[in-house]
């Protein structure tokens, strides 16, 4: 038997009543308070540049020559795709270097597991923070989309949550991968051989049906293809069809498996 002082003195401590995984996010929030301006600019500027260059510039050409894509203007076609692509990119970025910082470089995550937080809280807190970042930048991009008249359906309001899902569905497995890496050597490869091809061949800039059959087959399994197609069906008044539901289910599977893998990876790294 040992003395049980937990209940006596512990009970006297004042509490805010936050769930443990949410307390983990304070750490990110404090950093963000310092960097939010530059961070918002960098995470929304790139997709906005594409939006203007491709949507308006290239779009004028496409619309003039072919009368748009799939019956809508090129801008309306490309905007939801860019929303999905920006979410994917931010999701993966926030799940590579920041994970390495927390676990290996700055070891902030080790400070967390010395407190009431455990490895699961740290994993969920990380993904929770990524979700918040996705929500923020997706909302900004969505507002621009609305201003330029590319959202023609009330279903479009669901485009933001769909973008967050796309970012998490790809970010979560990335976090699991990043957590078990010795160093950041694999990250540039991930961006060049993973993110860039996904960005180019997932039906963002042109319908995947314009590619050869075997490339189409590969493109079909890309989560970005599913994310772009889901968001497009929401913003373009195509309603929730079977295809949209399949995309939703597909992304949800990626998301759930990714979260599970992230929790496992964080446990493996932090509980030794």
């Amino acid at each position: 038997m040992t003395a049980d002082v937990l209940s006596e003195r512990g009970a006297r401590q004042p509490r805010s009543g936050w769930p443990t995984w949410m307390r983990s996010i304070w750490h990110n929030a404090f950093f963000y308070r310092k960097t939010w301006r530059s961070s918002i600019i960098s995470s929304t500027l790139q997709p906005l540049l594409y939006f203007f260059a491709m949507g308006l510039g290239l779009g004028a050409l496409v619309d003039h020559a072919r009368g748009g894509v799939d019956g809508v203007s090129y801008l309306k076609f490309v905007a939801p795709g860019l929303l999905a692509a920006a979410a994917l990119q931010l999701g993966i970025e926030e799940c590579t270097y920041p994970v390495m910082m927390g676990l290996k470089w700055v070891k902030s995550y080790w400070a967390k597991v010395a407190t009431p937080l455990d490895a699961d809280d740290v994993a969920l807190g990380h993904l929770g923070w990524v979700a918040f970042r996705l929500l923020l930048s997706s909302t900004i991009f969505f507002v621009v989309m609305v201003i330029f008249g590319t959202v023609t359906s009330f279903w479009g309001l669901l485009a933001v949550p769909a973008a967050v899902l796309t970012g998490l569905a790809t970010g979560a497995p990335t976090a699991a991968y990043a957590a078990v890496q010795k160093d950041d050597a694999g990250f540039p490869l991930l961006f060049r051989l993973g993110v860039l091809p996904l960005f180019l061949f997932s039906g963002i800039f042109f319908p995947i049906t314009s590619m050869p059959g075997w490339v189409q087959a590969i493109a079909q399994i890309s989560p970005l293809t599913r994310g772009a197609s889901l968001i497009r069906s929401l913003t373009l008044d195509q309603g929730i069809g079977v295809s949209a539901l399949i995309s939703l289910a597909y992304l949800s599977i990626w998301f759930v498996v990714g979260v599970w893998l992230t929790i496992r990876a964080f446990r493996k790294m932090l509980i030794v």
Partner: protein
Amino acid sequence: MAFHLPSLFFSPKRALDVGMLREMKRKRKNIHPPEIFDGTLQPIVAAHDLVKRFDSFVAVDGIDVEIFQGESFGFLGPNGAGKTSTMRMISCMSPASGGSLRVLGRDPAVAGAQIRSRLGLVPQEDTLELELTVLDNMLIYGRYFDLPKKEILERTTRLLDFAQLSDRRDEKVDHLSGGMKRRLTIARALISEPDLLILDEPTTGLDPQARHLLWDRLYRLKAEGVTLIITTHYMDEAEQLCDRLVVMDHGKIVATGAPRDLIVEHSTREVLELRFGIDGHLPHVGGLQDLAERIEVLPDRLLLYVDDGDDALSMIHRRGLVPESALVRRSTLEDVFLHLTGRTLVD
């Protein structure tokens, strides 16, 4: 000369002055802890046959330890002795591979988070946020313990005062010295008013001045009734701070007791250190055996374990031996360790 301690905790001892505490401590000395507390208090850390394995490597090899409330308890040993692994198990961050462990009355395997909510951990490596300010570090850490902001701010004022960092509140941690970072890590660990403060090599890598300041702060905590667990490979640190300690080597406990008792038990009152130039000391070992209870042969010198060092030295001189240098000193824990393991602690 009585001055009041800064009150960090709502402990009944806080009104006592240092003089009284020293007196109490003197009375306690050399008494086994359970008797100090009339046998009514249960240990707040109890480990039995505790084992930590990493694959085939056994870091902690079946140790038994009981630590009591209000005690300052040390784990002493060279690098790789298993101290940090033991600390990590006690702080509920690392699961035990075998044996039983109870911390604050609970099993870390099932109540880890609950126990950690009442612990303060000062890890070997500071895990501070270097890019943020001192205050931000305190705020973030306090939030992990679910403390309301107002409470954290109040405690931070008090704790930074204690850690002598009040004037650095808004400075980036990156700009602090090693000793300041260490004190901040301790202040941070105290934000939850823990029942048990665990310090893993608190002064490693600090200059002497910073070490002494840190010791002073830890001594104050101890005086306030905070239970401390300290690992160290510095003898003087253990002698200064620990009521009781265990000496660890190769994952096992090789001795347990109060620092003074261990010295009495495993060493003599004094030590005579002799140098005879490079490799010149080896031929003298045989001829000096009768003068000392025991002789340790180190690469560069001989250690003669004697009750009266000056006496032994004059005998040596009378025999016509002229050592290059001779030093008489009191026995320390270093000698205990040397006797028990045949090795010095810090190579």
